[in-house]
């Protein structure tokens, strides 16, 4: 006679019941795990070309894996939602950034130009040049542009939400942003999304 029938007839056999429960629990948990859609929530706070990559790469890849993805853009991260992306990099104060030429012979490309911060700061247009060099490197290496990755995210139904407070703070015009933004929300709206996520990242 099965454990359940034994329970119903008050003939409870403890070890039989434990065995039944363990098996049932395991199969229910496996069922739950199989039905679970993993989720990722990202807080994107940086508005430079280099820092635009991590949120969009992770979000587009997660969506390709079938995950449910949300990105909350706040502070400088809002730059990533502009219709016209005009992102730049600043090597200034970023000693980890290699400075390499994307053109010329291989020996020249391999040189890591150690430019002192004081020089970077003093040369007008240094950041424009660094930005052009990075854009060229991205192209040479077959890395996607931010526009491509953002489109991939939108296509894959990644939920892009923006911080209302930042817009007010920086005096942005709502017309400057892409229409695919799902909502203008605050921390109180995003935190519950993050709470339900399996992975939550601050970038």
């Amino acid at each position: 006679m099965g454990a359940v029938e034994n329970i119903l007839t008050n003939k409870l056999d403890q070890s039989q019941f434990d065995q039944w429960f363990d098996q049932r629990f395991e199969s229910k948990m496996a069922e739950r795990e199989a039905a679970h859609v993993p989720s990722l929530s990202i807080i994107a706070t940086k508005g430079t070309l280099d820092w635009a990559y991590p949120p969009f790469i992770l979000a587009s890849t997660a969506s390709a894996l079938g995950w449910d993805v949300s990105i909350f853009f706040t502070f400088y991260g809002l730059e990533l939602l502009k219709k016209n992306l005009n992102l730049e990099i600043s090597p200034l104060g970023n000693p980890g950034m290699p400075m390499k030429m994307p053109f010329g012979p291989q020996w020249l490309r391999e040189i890591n130009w150690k430019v002192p911060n004081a020089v970077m700061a003093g040369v007008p247009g240094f950041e424009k040049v660094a930005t052009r060099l990075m854009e060229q490197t991205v192209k040479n290496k077959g890395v996607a542009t931010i526009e491509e990755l953002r489109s991939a995210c939108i296509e894959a139904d990644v939920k892009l939400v923006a911080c209302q407070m930042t817009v007010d703070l920086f005096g942005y015009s709502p017309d400057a942003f892409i229409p695919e933004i799902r909502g203008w929300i605050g921390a109180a709206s995003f935190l519950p999304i993050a709470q339900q996520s399996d992975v939550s990242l601050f970038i």
Partner: protein
Amino acid sequence: MMSTNATQSLDARGMNCPLPILRTKKALTNLGTGETLAVISTDPGSVKDMQAFCKQTGNELISSSANQGEFEFLIRKS
């Protein structure tokens, strides 16, 4: 280039992470269950990524091979 008789093929050569995975995912959505997709890439990172992608999405990675800096994958849609 492709030695297989896949239902569809995808040329991801010259693309870098995460583009090969994104394009693979897109190509798979156009396939029916049991149909196959052949992918060729040059990104060395795509070897591990393709394994992880297939494992996570439940599609079957039938084969994965390297040949002179090019990587070929055959995936069956589940």
